[in-house]
């Protein structure tokens, strides 16, 4: 079973890897975005860890709700409401249970990913974070390690795609040949999950 401490470890591990990879995320966002993805997410996840330290929410759902709210408030770019919605809807789906099963988490994450698709209007293949998140959720039944590998494969697989959402979509064919920064950061989030599980 997964308790609030597990979900705090997930958020903390993600914050650490976002911090470490911020320059790479921003570099990926330079040719096809506005070159702020790394610094935006870095600011957002720093606020998440600060808020979690201060408020110490007691349930998995409350950890994700607080984290999501911080991301929407502090990121400043489109990744804020998108990641914020992902975490808040996932948290809401988990309810107020003190512990949840891996199956509960898989189902809740699917709800969260569906909410992100509804918010942003993106589908798989649009060269967005969805291209890492959907395969990760599909693989979650085989464990956190499998989800991490699926998210990483999904992020890499965005490279030959043409962007149809967000600022990169204005570039048309010029977006082809660049790995999507949002899919890349989504893979970090899924990797944080595996890390929290000690995998």
């Amino acid at each position, binding site marked *: 079973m997964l308790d609030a401490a597990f979900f705090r470890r997930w958020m903390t591990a993600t914050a650490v890897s976002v911090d470490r990879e911020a320059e790479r995320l921003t570099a990926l966002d330079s040719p096809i975005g*506005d070159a702020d993805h790394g610094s935006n997410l870095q600011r957002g996840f720093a606020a998440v860890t600060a808020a979690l330290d201060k408020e110490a929410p007691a349930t998995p759902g409350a950890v994700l709700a607080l984290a999501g709210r911080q991301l929407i408030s502090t990121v*400043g770019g489109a990744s804020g*409401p*998108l990641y914020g919605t992902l975490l808040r809807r996932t948290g809401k789906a988990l309810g107020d249970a003190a512990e949840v099963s891996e199956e509960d988490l898989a189902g809740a994450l699917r709800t969260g990913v569906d909410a992100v698709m509804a918010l942003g209007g993106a589908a798989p293949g649009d060269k967005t974070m969805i291209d890492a998140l959907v395969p990760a959720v599909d693989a979650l039944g085989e464990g956190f390690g499998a989800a991490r590998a699926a998210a990483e494969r999904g992020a890499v697989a965005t490279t030959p795609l043409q962007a149809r959402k967000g600022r990169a979509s204005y570039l048309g064919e010029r977006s082809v040949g660049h790995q999507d920064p949002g899919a890349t950061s989504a893979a970090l989030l899924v990797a944080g999950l595996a890390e929290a599980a000690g995998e």
Partner: protein
Amino acid sequence: MTNEKVVGIVLVSHSAQVAAAVADLARGLAGGEAAVPVAAAGGTEGGGLGTSAELIAAAAASVDRGAGVAVLTDLGSAVLTVKAMLAEGDDLPGHTRLVDAPFVEGAVAAVVTAATGAGLDAVAAAAMEAYDYRKV
């Protein structure tokens, strides 16, 4: 005025200057006879380019007179942030609506219409109709 409670307008842009300038333009073109509360929520809290949920929430609260709040946005994260805040339920005053409209023309139409004392439906409709105005 048919309604003493006037609709409030919030203008959300990636840029503080754009939001403030469009607010000035809309107020100016609406004429001075009716005080329509218009608030700009531009840029991030740190003064950079982007969207701030905190600034949007504060702007919406500041223009809420009980007749609803119409929110107009420019693009990308501004749209998504307002949508995410509306989905949350308690981030924005009740009867807050994200209006699908061109930013400058829609803002002028919204403020002019709100100044007549029209309700939120009419203000939103006027802003959306600005899409139909062909320039050439």
